[in-house]
């Protein structure tokens, strides 16, 4: 069971949220090559360890935010609002 602290609503069961996958910087659309774009679209780090990832509070306030979660122990070490810079 994962308990996630929504930055707005506080700790809630993970079933209230939708998972958004790895948080990664998007390449510069004006400078990216087709190969780099393919890598960005399809390839994943699929990390075993603490992953920075997107979550969406679907059954709550509707916020997309970042969580840092260990992908084996499910320990959540931080949740915060994305500030607009690349993560």
């Amino acid at each position: 069971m994962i308990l996630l602290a929504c930055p707005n609503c506080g700790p809630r069961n993970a079933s209230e949220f939708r998972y958004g996958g790895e948080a990664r910087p998007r390449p510069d659309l004006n400078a990216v090559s087709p190969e780099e774009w393919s890598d960005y679209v399809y390839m994943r780090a699929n990390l075993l360890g603490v992953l920075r990832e997107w979550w969406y509070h679907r059954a709550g306030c509707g916020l997309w935010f970042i969580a840092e979660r260990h992908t084996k122990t499910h320990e959540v070490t931080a949740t915060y609002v994305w500030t607009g810079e690349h993560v």
Partner: protein
Amino acid sequence: MIGLIRQGLSGRHPLRRRWREHELQDRYDVVIVGGGVHGLATAYYLARDHGITNVAVLEKRYIGSGGSGRNTAIIRSNYLTPEGVLFYDESVKLYEELSAELDFNVLFSQRGHLTLAHSDAAVRTMRWRAEVNQIQGVDSRLIWPDEIARLCPHLDLSDRPRYPIVAALYHPPGGIIRHDAVVWGYAAGADERGVHIHQLTEVTGIDVEHGRVSGVRTNRGRIATGTVLNATAGWCTLISDMAGVSLPVTSHPLQACVSEALKPFLDVVVVSGSLHVYVSQSDRGEMVMGAAVDPYQSYSLDATLDFLEGLSGHILELFPGLAPVKVLRQWAGICDMTPDYSPIMGFTPVAGFLVDVGWGTYGFKAGPVSGKRIAELIATNTTPELIRPFRLARFAERALVGEKGAASVGH
């Protein structure tokens, strides 16, 4: 009787070991990482069809301890894309011959497979699947509630459920199999032909020199080799990372459970794409039940209450009579999901490093055909036509397969 007593007193098991233990050699022609059905089948067909026997299968725990021993053992070929249907159909045919081929009963029971449709949209997809299947010569057709009731009288076909059953895709050759027996049979067959199966042998690194594989490091020492096959599930990214090959994979747990044993009442496999459940009754009478992958990526093998609640609710929609039945065990396996619900097989940018990964929720049913075709790829150093659609390069070439007939996909 006297023989039995003598045997009992002798303290020795009457059957020989099906596979032996070996010292780790410092060189093998082919090293296969992962001792599941894919890895062992590849080793078996390498030895049987191509005479390549200087092969090691490395397994970090015991053979069949990963996805091969954790799946719900369903075999079918009624997929949605022509590539998928052709591929899984060959797999079903290999499974049909497997008991005779391996001289080991794998208990393949082709009891029929029903995929339920709960909406007009689902009926349309089923009709599409049936047409694709029939053109490829696979026995598969759309049936309506009267025939569903004859095949499976315990299903709730009334309009009481939230999602009433409208129709079903009926696939008579589909069924279930004893998954451990498949692993053991391939292991015995490979061992007999000279393959070394190394259990409790964990890969810790892969050596790449000038873009070519030169060896594998393990907890028991280094092996020099020019060919490494990554046939792992769950950990395929971690093994590929060792060779410096990126994969379009995210790993999600897939959970399943079994109930206490009941008298036999269900002799077909029942699947609902809309409700994300599948259920069959094992030879021991247990209801074997599974669902979609967990909604977040993870390497955890823990069971969750969320899953059990969701699954039970959906199973009771289909079979209200199971309400008093108790769940006996619940477990998880790790599924490597790809963007197009299709596997990744064959060459990678590193010469000599091959993959048979990304098997999502459908790896077990493809074990024999993958083994056979990957063995052919290794022996001939060319990609067989049947598995060409599943090459790693398809992502860069934007030629995805899009297999929405996979188990965790709704329609």
